[in-house]
C-alpha cells in the first residue's frame, strides 16, 4: 500500500528534532491562545505569519497548523471551568461543561473533552491521508474552466454558509478579489491599482492584509469596552471519568466527529458551526433532552469532538486543491505562498515530504495536546491572570517587526496601518473579514483561469456549462445561492402575511 510508505515518510519528517520542536511550540501556543479570550487563532497566525517567512516551509506549516488545532483544545478548558469560551467554537461547550463543573465534575468533563478531541483528531488526520491523494489526482486533470468554476463555488459557499449577512459576505469576497488585483498584471505587465507606490507593483503583501484585517481590528475592538471579566478558580478533584461517563460519551464522540469532519471539509463552515450542530444532534438523539443544559456529558463530548474534527478536515480542500474554506485556511495558504510554493494539487506530488510530514505532525500534535492539557490544566488557567493590557502591545510589536522583516521596508508598516483602519471599519459595519481574505488569496488565480478558459473557448462563456465537471461546480454554486436566498424570501413572505393579517 502506497499510503503506508507515505505515512512512514511523513513520520520521518515529523519526528525530526526540529519539526517536533515546532510542533510542540505550535500546540503550546495554540492551547494558550485557546484559553485566552480575545486572542484567537486568526490573530495569532496573522501575527506569526511574517515570522515564518524566515523559517523553512515544513516547520512553518507544522507550527501554524499546531496553533490552529491546539486552540480547539485550549478553548474547552476555560469553557468548562469558568463558563468563559476562549474561542467561538467552544461557546457550546459552556452550556453543559460549566454545569458539570458546578456539580464538581469538572475533571470528567475536561477528560471527555480531551478524549473526544483526540479521537476526532485521529479520524481527521486519517481522512486527510485517505482522501487527499485521490482528490489531488482528480484535481490535476482540471483545466482552466474547471478551476475557475471550483474557485467560484468555494467563494460563494464560503460567503453563503458562514454565519452572518450573506450579501455583505459576498461583497467582501468581491472586495478581496479587487485587492488581489493590486500589482503588476502577469499578461500585460501593466501595474494595476498601485496608486503610484512602487512597493505596490509587487502586489499587496499577504501578511500586511492579514495583520491589518485580523490583528489590528481585533485588538481595537477588544479595547473598546472597559469591562474586565471576573476570574474564578475552581478546584479540580477527580480527572477520571467513570465507566458510565465513557459509555454515554462513546456515540456522541463518534457522531460529533462525523458532523465535524463533514462541516470542516466544506467551505464556509468551520469549528463553530460544527460544534453547534453536534450539540443539536445530541439533544435530538437523547432519550431525555431535558438533561441538556444541566450538565449532560454528551453535550460536552459531541461538540468538543466536532470542533476538533472540523479543524483537521478543513485542511483537506486547502492542501489538495489549493482552495481555502475559511479565514484560517486562507492564512495557511498564504504561508505556503510566501514560502514560494504555489498552492494546488501539485503540492502533494511535488512536495510529498511537506504534505505527509504535516499530516504526521498533526497526529503527533494531537497526542501532545492530550498529554499537555490534562495534567497541566491548572497552569493554563493561571494564564487568565495575565491582563489584556500586557498582551496587546506585545502582539503589536511582533506584528510590526515581523512585517518589517519580510521586505525590510517601512512601506509595509504604513500599509498595515491603512489595512488596520479598513479592517476596523469593516468590522464595525459587520462586514466579515474572512471572505475578504479568501477573495484576496484566490483573486489572481481566478483572473488567470478565467482568461485562459475564455481563450480556450474563443471567448464563448458557455464553456463553463458545457464541460461536465465545470457544470456541476456551477450548478452547486447556484444551488447554494438559491437555498440561502429562499428561506429569507419565505421569512419575508411570512412577515408580510403576518403584518397584513394583524
Amino acid at each position, binding site marked *: 500500500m502506497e499510503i503506508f510508505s507515505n505515512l512512514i515518510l511523513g513520520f520521518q519528517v515529523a519526528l525530526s528534532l526540529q519539526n517536533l520542536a515546532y510542533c510542540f511550540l505550535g500546540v503550546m501556543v495554540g492551547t494558550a491562545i485557546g484559553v485566552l479570550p480575545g486572542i484567537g487563532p486568526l490573530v495569532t497566525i496573522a501575527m506569526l505569519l511574517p515570522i515564518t517567512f524566515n523559517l523553512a516551509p515544513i516547520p512553518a506549516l507544522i507550527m501554524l497548523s499546531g496553533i490552529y488545532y491546539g486552540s480547539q483544545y485550549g478553548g474547552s478548558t476555560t469553557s468548562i471551568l469558568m463558563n468563559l469560551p476562549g474561542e467561538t467554537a467552544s461557546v457550546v461547550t459552556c452550556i453543559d461543561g460549566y454545569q458539570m463543573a458546578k456539580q464538581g465534575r469538572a475533571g470528567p468533563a475536561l477528560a471527555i473533552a480531551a478524549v473526544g478531541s483526540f479521537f476526532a483528531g485521529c479520524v481527521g488526520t486519517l481522512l486527510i491521508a485517505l482522501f487527499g491523494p485521490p482528490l489531488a489526482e482528480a484535481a490535476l486533470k482540471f483545466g482552466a474552466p474547471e478551476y475557475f468554476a471550483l474557485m467560484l463555488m468555494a467563494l460563494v459557499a464560503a460567503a453563503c454558509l458562514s454565519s452572518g449577512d450573506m450579501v455583505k459576505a459576498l461583497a467582501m469576497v*468581491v472586495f478581496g*478579489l479587487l485587492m488581489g488585483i493590486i500589482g503588476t498584471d502577469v499578461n500585460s505587465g501593466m501595474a494595476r491599482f498601485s496608486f503610484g507606490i512602487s512597493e505596490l507593483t509587487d502586489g499587496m503583501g499577504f501578511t500586511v492584509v492579514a495583520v491589518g484585517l485580523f490583528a*489590528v481590528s481585533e485588538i481595537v475592538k477588544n*479595547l*473598546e469596552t472597559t469591562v474586565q471579566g471576573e476570574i474564578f478558580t475552581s478546584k479540580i478533584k477527580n480527572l477520571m471519568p467513570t465507566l458510565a461517563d465513557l459509555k454515554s460519551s462513546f456515540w456522541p464522540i463518534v457522531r460529533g466527529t462525523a458532523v465535524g469532519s463533514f462541516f470542516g471539509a466544506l467551505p464556509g463552515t468551520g469549528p463553530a458551526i460544527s460544534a453547534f450542530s453536534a450539540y443539536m444532534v445530541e439533544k435530538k438523539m437523547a432519550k431525555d433532552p431535558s438533561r441538556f443544559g444541566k450538565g449532560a456529558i454528551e453535550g460536552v463530548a459531541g461538540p468538543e469532538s466536532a470542533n476538533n474534527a472540523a479543524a483537521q478536515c478543513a485542511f483537506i480542500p486547502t492542501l489538495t486543491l489549493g482552495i481555502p474554506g475559511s479565514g484560517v485556511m486562507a492564512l495557511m495558504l498564504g504561508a505556503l505562498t510566501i514560502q514560494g510554493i504555489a498552492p494546488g494539487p501539485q503540492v502533494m506530488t511535488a512536495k510529498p515530504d511537506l504534505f505527509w510530514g504535516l499530516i504526521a505532525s498533526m497526529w503527533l500534535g494531537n497526542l501532545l495536546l492530550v498529554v499537555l492539557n490534562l495534567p497541566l490544566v491548572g497552569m493554563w488557567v493561571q494564564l487568565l491572570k495575565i491582563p489584556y493590557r*500586557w498582551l496587546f502591545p506585545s502582539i503589536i510589536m511582533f506584528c*510590526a517587526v515581523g512585517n518589517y522583516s519580510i521586505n525590510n521596508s517601512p512601506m509595509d508598516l504604513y500599509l498595515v496601518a491603512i489595512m488596520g483602519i479598513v479592517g476596523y471599519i469593516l468590522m464595525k459595519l*459587520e462586514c466579515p473579514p474572512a471572505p475578504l481574505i479568501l477573495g484576496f488569496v484566490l483573486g489572481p488565480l481566478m483572473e488567470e483561469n478565467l482568461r485562459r478558459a475564455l481563450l480556450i473557448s*474563443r*471567448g464563448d462563456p458557455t464553456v463553463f456549462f458545457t464541460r461536465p465537471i465545470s457544470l456541476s461546480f456551477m450548478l452547486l454554486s447556484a444551488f447554494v445561492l438559491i437555498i440561502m436566498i429562499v428561506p429569507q424570501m419565505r421569512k419575508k413572505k411570512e412577515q408580510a402575511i403576518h403584518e397584513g393579517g394583524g
Partner: protein
Amino acid sequence: MKLDLVNNKDFLAGLLMISVGAIAFYMALDYPFGSALRMGPGYFPRVLAGILMTFGLYVMIRGIKSGEKVEGAWGWKALAMITLAFVVFGWLMDRIGMIPSLVVMFFLAALAGHQFKWLEVTILTVLMTAFAWAVFIWGLGLPYRLFWWDY
C-alpha cells in the same frame, strides 16, 4: 422614524462598497478592457467593481429601510494609537535602529489601552524588547542595526 445615516450600519457599509467600487472602476478605465476572447488588464477589475457597486447599492437601500445602528462606540483613540505605533515604528526603524524604535512603539501602543501605568509599561517594554531581540536578531539572525550608533 428619524433618519440617522451617520450611525446607520448598513448605509455606511453600502456607501463604503460603492466608494471602493467607484474608485476601482475609475482607475481601471485606464487599463485596456480587451474582449472576452482576449481579456485585457481592465476586464476583470471593471467587472468586479461593477458587482461591488451593485452589492453596495443593495446594502445601502436595505440600511435606509431597516435603520439598524452601529453597535457599540467607535474606538477611534485606540485605533489611532495603534496605527500610529506601526507608522512611527516603520519610520524610525531605518533611522535610529531597532531597540529605540521598539521602545517608542511599545509606549505608543500601550497608550491605546484604558490603563497606563508608567512602571508597568516600562518593565514590559524592557522585557518584550529583550524578547524581540532574542527572537529576531539572535534566533532568526535578521541583520538589523540595534542603535543609531551602529550606522
